[in-house]
């Protein structure tokens, strides 16, 4: 059972969680895009990191419940995938 996606049959909120997760991932992608485009500008990078830390809380409350792979460290997209 481990690592399987939760389906509507398992859990009444499955559809809602999937929809919420899509929005959470969109925020995350946008924040990473912002960081990449910032060219080292701290005013952008550091604020984007804060958005990503908050986005991780959204993942804890939404995405982690769907069974999707988790990112542990919010500030990077290349060291935490397990």
């Amino acid at each position, binding site marked *: 059972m*481990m690592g399987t996606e939760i389906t509507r049959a398992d*859990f009444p909120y499955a559809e809602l969680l999937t929809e919420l997760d899509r929005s959470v991932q969109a925020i995350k992608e946008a924040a990473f895009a912002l960081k990449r485009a910032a060219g080292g500008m701290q005013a952008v990078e550091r604020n984007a990191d804060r958005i990503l*830390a908050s986005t*991780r*809380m959204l993942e*804890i409350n939404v995405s982690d*419940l769907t069974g999707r792979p988790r990112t*542990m*460290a919010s*500030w990077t997209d290349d060291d935490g995938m397990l």
Partner: protein
Amino acid sequence: MAGSDRYWNPIVETMPLEQLREVQLRKFRAIVSWAYEHSRLHRALYDEAGFRPDRLKVWSDAALVPKVDKAHMRGIQRKDPFPYGDALCVPLDRVTEFRQTSGTTGQAVYQGDTWQDWEWWAECWSYLLYAQGYRATDRVFLPFGYNIFVAFWAAHYAAEKMGMEVVPGGVLDTEARILKLQELRPTAMMATPTYVLGMAEKAKTMGIDPADDLQVRRITCAGEPGASIPSTKQRMEEAWGAKVYDHCGATEIGAWGFECEEQSGGIHVNEALFLAQVEDLETGELVEEPGRRGRLIITALDRIGMPCVRFDSKDVVEWAEEPCACGRTFRLFKGGVVGRADDITKVKGVLLAPSAIEEVVRSFPAFQEFEVEVTKKGDLDQITLRLELPAGYDGDQDELLSQLKHQLRLNTNLGYRVEVLEEGTLPRYALKAKRFKDLRKVGG
């Protein structure tokens, strides 16, 4: 969404147990792997025990993961990456918060958190404050000087996150804090049980009755077990005319448990963010059934800077028989944390938990502050209980003391030497009260 008025996250807080266990196991595997890959402390421990994270297949495998305790954490600190040492899992420049334990049981332990971890701390507290009825309309007063300890910092951040108005009450003396309560009319407050009672006592000397003259209707306690001790809770609730709630947490763990508005006599484990395992005090066997005490081994499922994986909290707990009427599927510990494995001591051959004495003393409204001292006279243990009685006490003191000794004998199976002191003689504590002193170990 249904339940949004009662639960911070209605989906996970009412999730069917089977699904909740799946989520927990998936997250547990991830944090164990993270610790193994990024913490030299955890890798060394796991390698030494012949454990690898890929062995975690089913629920019962969780018990295979080696435990960590405070001694491990003390052993690694003050080394590189300074001062946290081998348990730090992130580059040092990702650490934004330093806290340390109070050092009550030995050398203080340093704790480094990333900003993500700090967001997570606030998330833990948001679950608990929402469960205790706090809402954006509350004005919350924190009569506490925030400092190097974690106490109430995360509560402050959570209250802000939830939209409350936060009044920081540090660097004020008790009188000034009471006047501020009168001036600003906060609806909620957070403090240690000892300080909650001390403030009420002080307010009365100022001619202010907290229950009638102040607007605090909700109090959350931390730092000591008092809010889960029925007689102490009752005394606080009567003094303030407020509901008093308990919560459980620790610097190295996070805020892992909370009492909800139902006040069902237990503490919910926040099973969205923590995995709680209870082990028999003697055998270490996993305890799943209600009614049997054990020590809490706990994992913070989402804390990454310095992970807390299978941490031996030394808290003594017992699963409750019935689920809570609040509708949460998060399990309950009956009576909260009922003691500390390192606090429970043998006196005259009988196991004694200091909280059992507090429960009895606080059930007698006449007594104010108290302290307990265990000494050795020759080969015999002796317990002295010192109590403050108000100067104007007009009851029969001998009868009162006789009832107290009788109740203590019933609850703890021990006899006590009782000394009555004048009101105001014993120290008042703002953080962790030290009322139980075992002087046998220091040659007393």
